[in-house]
């Protein structure tokens, strides 16, 4: 959801004449929305600018974003950073938001709790 929010802001700023570059890790959401310049970092969500403590990687990624900001000639330009989260383990791709028999009941219960909380919030609003 953060990726959609930021993409909408990028579009607003571009339309107002302010050049932008989006640096993120949820490729489908940004590209579906459509932005002028996008640097895609194929990492788990949370560290689009580089791994924690890895200053050299952060410099490469942020430097790439600045290069893309400067060199892009047409909208919908996506450039993928040449970084790999873990060359020996791709498991993060499947673990995030996974749904399987081990957590199905837990997810259903979490949904029930969320709906109950939202109902309480609505009821507590003066003009709910």
């Amino acid at each position, binding site marked *: 959801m953060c990726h959609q929010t930021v993409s*909408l*802001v990028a579009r607003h700023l571009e339309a107002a004449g302010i050049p*932008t570059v989006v640096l993120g890790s949820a490729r489908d959401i940004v590209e579906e929305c459509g932005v002028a310049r996008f640097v895609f970092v194929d990492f*788990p969500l949370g*560290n*689009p600018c580089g791994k924690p403590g890895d200053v050299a990687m952060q410099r490469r990624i942020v430097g790439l974003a600045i290069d893309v900001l400067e060199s892009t000639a047409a*909208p919908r330009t996506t450039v993928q950073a040449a970084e790999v989260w873990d060359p020996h383990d791709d498991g993060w791709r499947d673990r995030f938001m996974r749904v399987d028999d081990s957590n199905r009941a837990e997810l259903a219960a979490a949904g029930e709790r969320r709906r109950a909380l939202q109902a309480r919030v609505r009821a507590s609003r003066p003009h709910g």
Partner: protein
Amino acid sequence: MLGMTDRRRTSPSFVSYIDRSARYYEAQGYPQRYAWAHFDDVPFAPLTKPLAASRLGVVTTSYFHPENTQVRSFVDRPVDPYAAPRSAAAELDNAELFWAKEETHTDDPETFLPLARLGELAEAGRLGSVSPRFYGLPTAYSQRRTLQRDAPAIEAFIRDDEVDVALLVPL
């Protein structure tokens, strides 16, 4: 090594967050899929001056933990866009945002709000300067809210600070 693949896959490697989140929320009892924003036309603003003479501002979806809120749920929380001094970056709180908490952490702010890395680029002359403030807005399900309320507020902050170009980093 030329001629060898690193690995073979039966499906694309990129995570589709649109599909993944639909399955996840369906399992939570929300069968109706969220309708993500899609535009055919994409606005494009060319640079009007060299980056070495431009001021860059950073926009984030990270935010400060709000006080006086009873319900800790971003869907119900009315938070406003903000502009904050760069020194406040260490106080950001990402606990309620939806990122890969099983895989990593956000204790190093440079991983999502690279003010020090950008400062180095300004120091080196690659950028004219980095804005003294960074800008944040809430992640919102409502595209109308983002487009009509929050995005104009971010633009106003940016114009106040005479920012020329923007780097936007979602969590």
